[in-house]
C-alpha cells in the first residue's frame, strides 16, 4: 500500500493505555483473523503469546542441538588425545575406559557452554536481531515503548489489511493515537 505522496505504508498502529487493555485488544485482533501484526510493550506481558495466538517458542530445540554438539565436542576432545593421540600416564594411574568419570566435568562444562551460545544466537536469529532500523521507529510516540507505552500494529502486508478496516478495528479495541506508519521516515 502506498500513500498519495508515494510513501510505502508499513502498517496501522495504535497506542493503548495499559497492559490489560493491550491484552484485550490482542485477543480481538487475533479473533478478527489477522496474521501479520504485532504488539509492543516495555516488558513481556504474561499470557500475551496465547492472546496473540502464538504457540510455545521452539528455541529450546536449537538449544538441545547445541547441547548435544557440546557433549560430542567434549567426547572427541577428551577421548581423542587421551586414548589415541597421546595417552598420558600420570602417577602410574590407569588410563583405561573405566576412568571415564574423570572426563565428566569437561563434558558437562562444554555441554553448558555450547547450549548457552545456542540460546544466545538462536534468540537473535529467530527475532531477526540485530536490526537497527525499523519502520516503527519512524513514529515519535513509539519511543515510549521502552518506558510505559503499549502499542499494537497491523501490518499492511496482511491480506486482511485495509486502511478503513484497520482503523475501525483499532478504534473498536480502544486504541488511541491511531496512526499510519510509513516504511521510510
Amino acid at each position, binding site marked *: 500500500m502506498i500513500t498519495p505522496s508515494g510513501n510505502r505504508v508499513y502498517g496501522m498502529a495504535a497506542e493503548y493505555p*495499559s*497492559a*490489560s*487493555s*493491550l*491484552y484485550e485488544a*490482542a485477543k480481538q485482533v487475533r479473533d478478527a483473523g489477522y496474521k501479520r501484526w*504485532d*504488539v*509492543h*510493550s*516495555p*516488558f*513481556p*506481558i504474561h*499470557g*500475551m*503469546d496465547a492472546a*496473540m495466538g*502464538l504457540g510455545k517458542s521452539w*528455541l529450546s530445540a536449537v538449544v538441545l542441538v547445541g547441547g548435544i554438539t557440546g557433549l560430542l565436542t567434549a567426547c572427541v*576432545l*577428551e577421548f581423542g*588425545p587421551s586414548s589415541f*593421540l*597421546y595417552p*598420558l600416564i*600420570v602417577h602410574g594411574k590407569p588410563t583405561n575406559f573405566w576412568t571415564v568419570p*574423570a*572426563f565428566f*566435568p*569437561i563434558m*558437562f*562444562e*562444554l555441554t*553448558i*557452554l555450547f*547450549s*548457552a*551460545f545456542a*540460546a*544466545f544466537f*538462536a*534468540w*537473535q536469529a529467530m*527475532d531477526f*536481531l*540485530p536490526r*537497527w*532500523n*525499523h519502520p*516503527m*521507529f519512524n513514529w515519535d510516540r*513509539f*519511543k*515510549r*515503548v*521502552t*518506558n*510505559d507505552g503499549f502499542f499494537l500494529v497491523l501490518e499492511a502486508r496482511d491480506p486482511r489489511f485495509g486502511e478503513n478496516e484497520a482503523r475501525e478495528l483499532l478504534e473498536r479495541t480502544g486504541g488511541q493515537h491511531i496512526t499510519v506508519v510509513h516504511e521510510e521516515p
Partner: protein
Amino acid sequence: MDSAPTAPDVIAGEASASAAPSVARVPLVLNQRNFDWVTNRISGAVENATPRWWWVAFAISSITAVIGLFCLGYLISTGVGTWGVNIPVGWAWGITNFVFWIGIGHAGTLISAILFLLRQKWRTSINRSAEAMTLFAVICAGIFPAVHVGRVWMAWFLAPVPMQYGAWPNFRSPLLWDVFAVSTYFTVSVLFWYTGLVPDLGTLRDRATSKAKKFFYGIFALGWRGSNRHWRHYEMAYLLLAGLATPLVLSVHSVVSFDFAVSIIPTWHTTIFPPYFVAGAIFGGFAMVLTLMIPARAIYKLQDIITPQHIDKMAKVILLTGSIVAYSYMMEFFISWYSGNQYERFASYNRIFGPYWWYWWVGMLFCNCLSPQLFWFKWCRYNIFVVYFVCMCVNAGMWFERFIIIVGGLHRDFLPSSWGLFHPSWVDIWTFVGTFGIFLSLFLLFIRFLPMIAMSEVKTVLPEADPHHALPGGHHPVAAAKEERT
C-alpha cells in the same frame, strides 16, 4: 536509616479505602510507583551529571587497581619468588584470593538464575547488579591462577591445542577441569547478563539526548523494540540460560573444591568439599551483594525498589547458607575424629590451637558461624547497620576460611622437619588489595554507564503489569493497586 515497614503497617496505611485482606503481601515496589517512575529513577542514575562522590571513589579505586596491576607486572617480570610462597606452603594468598573472588561471583548467578527458576520475583530488583558483580569478581579471580603458575607465557599449555611435542593436557586433572569450569562460567555469565540488558539498553537509547549516546546504546540494544514476537523467543532464551546457569554455578565451585579434595593433604581430602564450598560461595557472595547494594540504594534513592523486604530476604539466605557452612565445619571436625587417622586429627587440632589459631577463632567461628545467627531476629534483618556489620564480618570471614583451608593444610607437613609458616610479601598484599581496586573500578563504571536495576523486569512485578488487572474508573494506578491487594 530505614524504618521497617511490616505487612500490618503497610496495610494499615491503606485500609481506609478497603477492608483489610486476610492474607497480605508487602508489595515488591513500594509507594505504588508506576512504570514511568521506574524508568526515570533507574535511567536517571545513568543520565544525570556525574556526582562528585563518584569521581572521588573512582579515583581511589582506580589508583588501587593500578597498584595491583603494577604488582602483577613485577611478579611476572621477576618471578613468583616475589610472593611469600615457599616449601611447605606452596599455595597461599594467590589461591585463597582466587577461591574468595570466584565464590563472591556465585551469589550473582544464584540470584539471577536459581531464584528465577524458583519464581522468586523479588530477585528483579537486585539481579542486574548482582550479575555485574559476578562478572567483575570472576575477572579478579581469573588473575590469580593465571599468574601463580610463574611462567605466565606458558599458560596456554592449559589449552587443549596441538603443540610441537605432541603432548596434550591431562583431561583427568581437576586443575584442567577448573580451566574449563571457570572459563565457561565467565562466558555464560556474560551472555546471560547481556541478554537481560538488551531491553534496558533500548530504554537508554530511546531516552538518549546526544547523538553519541544514541549511537552507542543503540548499537548494543540490537534494535530492540519490545515486540511480543521478540519477547516470546527472548523469554525462552532467558529461561534456558537460567536453567543452564543453575547447574553450572553448582558445578563451578564443586570443581574448585576438587582442586583440593582430589589431593591427599589432611583436611583437603574430604568428600564434603563440593556442597560445603558451594554453600560458602553463596554465603560470601550474598554478603558482597548487600555490601554493594546498601550504599547504592541510599545514594541513588532506590529504597522503593530495593526495599527492606529485599534486604530481609537476602539476610535469610545468608542465615541459611551460613548455617550450612557452620554445619560443614562441625562435620569436618567430627569426621577427622571419627576417621581415626592421626594426620587428620592433628590437622583439626592444629586448626583450633595451632599457629593460625586466631584465624579460626575470629574468621571461621565468629565471622562465619556466629555473626549470621543474628539474622534469626527480625529486628536485626531490618536494621541496616546490623546487616552491614554482619556482611562485613562474612566478607572477611570467608577470606579467612579459604586461607585456613589452604595454608592450614600445608604448613604442618607430614614430616615435622619441613614445617613452616607463611609470611606474605608486600607484593602478595598489594596484589590482593589491587584486585579490590579492579573490582570496585569496574563496578563504579557499571553503575555510571548501565542501568543497575533491570527496568523491564521490575516493571513486570508492578500490579499494573498483570493483563487481568482491572482499572476501575479509568487509569488510576493508586486505586488500582489498592484494588489489586483486596
